[in-house]
């Protein structure tokens, strides 16, 4: 079985995002990491292999030469090989899903396992759009995943607003990872060194044959206004009085 894991490079979610005066992301001092949800997806693929399934894991990124670093990390985590589509890192899921669909045409994966959203643009679209373009089932927001013994189906538990929903999808399919699918492993130094010898193919985007233009234009970014400063209250009684008489919410 072949599992394709798309990888996005995003600013470290634990560092404060800064904007330039003209409303763009200030990328001058950003620490870049693998999108945390993509890391969970990759970890799940590695665990499927460790649980005994015969699995080839292909990590794919779309971006400039700087994207080799997260792909090397993906190789160190357990991907067998990596594919870098050389392009000016697109941000519109409409574009990304078309490029990934073209990659799927080449690679013919049985399962596309990817993060449910990128933590920078928070769009939550690419997996679903890709499933639509491929005409295959999707199971988004996965918190559990098992493959059938014959490798033709996947059973997925999804975190939905009402609780936990379980679906069975025929493969190939797109599954997107939610937070509680797993806890990604810490990558040890020997794995990083060993990963240097794993194959990383670079493919100019032109060779995929499709590169639709972006149709979403981001005009400016702003920081939302901070909340008005509140105050500390000294006791439960004072809190109740404030909620009744000032805020008038109880």
């Amino acid at each position, binding site marked *: 079985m072949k599992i394709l894991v798309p990888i996005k490079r995003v600013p470290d*979610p634990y560092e*404060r*995002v800064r*904007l330039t005066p003209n409303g763009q992301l200030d990328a001058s001092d950003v620490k870049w990491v693998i999108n945390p949800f993509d890391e969970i997806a990759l970890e799940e693929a590695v665990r499927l292999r460790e649980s005994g399934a015969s699995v080839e894991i292909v990590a794919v990124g779309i971006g400039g030469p700087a994207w080799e670093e997260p792909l090397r990390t993906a190789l160190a985590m357990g991907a067998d090989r990596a594919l870098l589509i050389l392009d000016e890192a697109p941000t519109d*899921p*409409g574009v990304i899903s078309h490029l990934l669909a073209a990659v799927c045409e080449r690679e013919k994966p049985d399962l596309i396992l990817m993060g449910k*959203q990128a*933590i*920078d*643009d*928070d*769009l*939550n*679209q*690419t997996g*679903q*759009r*890709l*499933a*639509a373009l491929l005409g295959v*089932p*999707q*199971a*988004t927001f996965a918190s559990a995943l098992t493959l059938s013994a014959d490798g033709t189906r996947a059973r997925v538990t999804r*975190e*939905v*607003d*009402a*609780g*936990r*929903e*379980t*679906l*069975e*999808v*025929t493969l190939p399919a797109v599954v997107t990872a939610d*937070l*509680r699918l797993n806890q990604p492993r810490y990558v040890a130094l020997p794995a990083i060194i060993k990963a240097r010898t794993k194959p990383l193919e670079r493919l100019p985007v032109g060779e995929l044959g499709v590169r639709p233009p972006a*149709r*979403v*234009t*981001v*005009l400016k*970014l*702003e*920081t*939302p206004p901070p*909340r008005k400063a*509140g105050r*500390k*209250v000294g*006791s*439960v009684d004072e*809190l*109740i009085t*404030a*909620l009744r008489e000032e*805020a008038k*919410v*109880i």
Partner: protein
Amino acid sequence: MSNVLVLAETDGAHVLPGTLPAITFAQTLGRETGGGFDLLILGGAEIAGEAEAWRSYGAGRVFVAAAPELAHPTADRAAAVCVAAAQQAGAESIVGTSSTFGRDVLPRVAGLLDLPMLSDVLHVEKAESRLMFRRPMVAGNVIATVQVEGDRGIFSVRGTAFGPPEKGNTPSEVQTLNVDGGALPQGTTWIGLEAGEQKRPELTMARVVVSGGRPLRDAETFERLIGGLADKLGGAVGATRAAVDSGIAPNELQVGQTGKVVAPELYIAAGISGSVQHLAGMKDSKTIVAINTDPDAPIFEVADYGLVADLHQALPELIAKL
């Protein structure tokens, strides 16, 4: 002229109140562009009975797609029906709520129709003859102003950003859409839903939300203190990711960047430090109360009223005195 289709929020049996903000957005869009909107209700056979209640919001038509194969509307089938309805309605744009249903189905519709999509829309207005949309990014720490090509596409709206819709002048016409169940995608089988009992108001619609973090220690204490205070205030219960991860609270209560986004009149955060991811889900609440033992916890930076106290003492006292 109708040019927007609203995909009603559904569990397959009922149209859910989460549909309302999507209608409000469609009405706003209609005012800015001079168009109207239609509403699509899809689900199992009994969903047809829901149409009557949704005729009063000014939709040109209420389309009803009812079939046993849609009783548990998985994304592949819901998206296929939505595309067929959009074609029948002559819709240029499709709108829904940014729930797990909308976030699952709408991007698939965008893929099928190859249209641009904006997620979590907070605001729309016309400026210099173009539609300008605002949406959050980076866990709500950035607000982006964006345009889409041709001013048309797929839009999921953040429920807390749009109030109740206006009532229409005349009842909408109801039209039945024929659904050929056998022609719907067959690759997804619905197995089941594990849901907690719903004895409290729905989290995203509640006037009051009481949320707890890991210091609640166990499910029994969480229910007694967080649930107890919520019941005193007629409110809903929320939880942090840490509380859900450690099994103190079920996943459907998670508030935050990847959970639910709430903006109640009153949000009480007990034993919550205030991570960026949690703040993303609640910082637009009208009044925020924080109860935490750590006076330097970031939650106090967004709280209107902060009480530095041990929740195991403060919450029982609060419950007793309310």
